C-alpha cells in the first residue's frame, strides 16, 4: 500500500496512509502516515467503536491538510487495551516442534496458492 501511495504522490496526488505497522510503512517511506498502535487489521478503528473510527478518519483528513513535509507520521492517541500484552502474540517464537511443523505446512500450502495466482495473473 505504501508503494501505491508513493506512486500517487510522485504523480501529483496527495495521499495519507492509515496503518498499524509503523516500521513497515516508514521503511517504505510515505508522505503522510496515520499510525494506530493497534493489532494489524484495525487501521481505521476498533470494531464496533464509532469514537475511534470517526476520530481516525478525522485525523487522516487533518494530516492531509497540515503536513508540510514527507515522512510526516502522526500516532493516534487511542489505545487498543489498557495493557500491552496483545503485543506478545503476533509471530510468537516460543513454538514447539509440532507447532513449527504445522506452521511450515500451512505456510507452504498458502505460498503455493499465491504462486499459482501470481502465475495466472502474469499470464
Amino acid at each position: 500500500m505504501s508503494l501505491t501511495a508513493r506512486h500517487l504522490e510522485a504523480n501529483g496526488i496527495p495521499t495519507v496512509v492509515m496503518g498499524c505497522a509503523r516500521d513497515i510503512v516508514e521503511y517504505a517511506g510515505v508522505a503522510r502516515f496515520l499510525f494506530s498502535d493497534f493489532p494489524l487489521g484495525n487501521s481505521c478503528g476498533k470494531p464496533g467503536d464509532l469514537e475511534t473510527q470517526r476520530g481516525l478518519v478525522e485525523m487522516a483528513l487533518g494530516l492531509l491538510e497540515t503536513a508540510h513535509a514527507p515522512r510526516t507520521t502522526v500516532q493516534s492517541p487511542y489505545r487498543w487495551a489498557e495493557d500491552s500484552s496483545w503485543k506478545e502474540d503476533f509471530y510468537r517464537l516460543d513454538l514447539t516442534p509440532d507447532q513449527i511443523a504445522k506452521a511450515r505446512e500451512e505456510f507452504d500450502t498458502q505460498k503455493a496458492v499465491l504462486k499459482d495466482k501470481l502465475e495466472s495473473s502474469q499470464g
Partner: protein
Amino acid sequence: MSDNAPPQYICCRTEVALNVQHAGKPIEAVLDLPIRYIDRSRAYYLALGYDNPYRWAYNRDVPFVALSRPLTRSRVGLITTAAPFKPEAGDQGPWAPYNASAKFTEVYSMPIESLPDLRIAHLGYDRKHTSAEDINSYFPLQRLKEAEAAGRIGELNSRFYAVPSLRSQRLTTERDAPGILEMCRADGIDAAILVAT
C-alpha cells in the same frame, strides 16, 4: 539477570540490549513499543527454518505534494487492499485463518452507493486480536460518507479503488500502482486515503 528487574535496566550489556526478548516476552510488549514487524517476521520465518526472509520495500527519498485546494472543495478517493467476498474461495468470515485463495490479482474499483462486502482473510493481519467482524475497522467508507455529509470534504469519489497484495513489489510498482493512478486521474481525484492492512 532477574526476571523481576525493571525493564529499563535490561540494556546494561550490548548483547542483552540487542536481545528482543525480556523474561520470555517480546520487548515491545514489555516496554509498550510499536511492534517491530520487520524484525519479528524475520525471526519468525528463520525460526520456522526458512532462510530467505521477505525483504520489505525500502526507500530513502519520499515524494510529497501539498493539497491543491481545501479539503472542503476536494474530491477524495479511498483505496483498499480488501477483497470482495468470494463464496467459492473458502473461509473469509470473522476469525478466518489466512486464506490466499481469497486474494484478487488485479486492481479493481466498485461504486460506493451501497456498502460492498469486502473481507481481509487474504491478508496477514493479527488473527488472535483482530476479528475482522466490522468492515469499518479496515474500510472507512461509512465514516467518509459521514465526513462528506458534514461538509468536511467536498466530495467522496463515486467509486473506491483496490490494489492487490501479492507480495511482489515489482507487480505493485510497475503494474498496479500505475493502474490506480490511471483511475484516480480519470476521476479527477484531489487527495487519496489508503488503508494498509
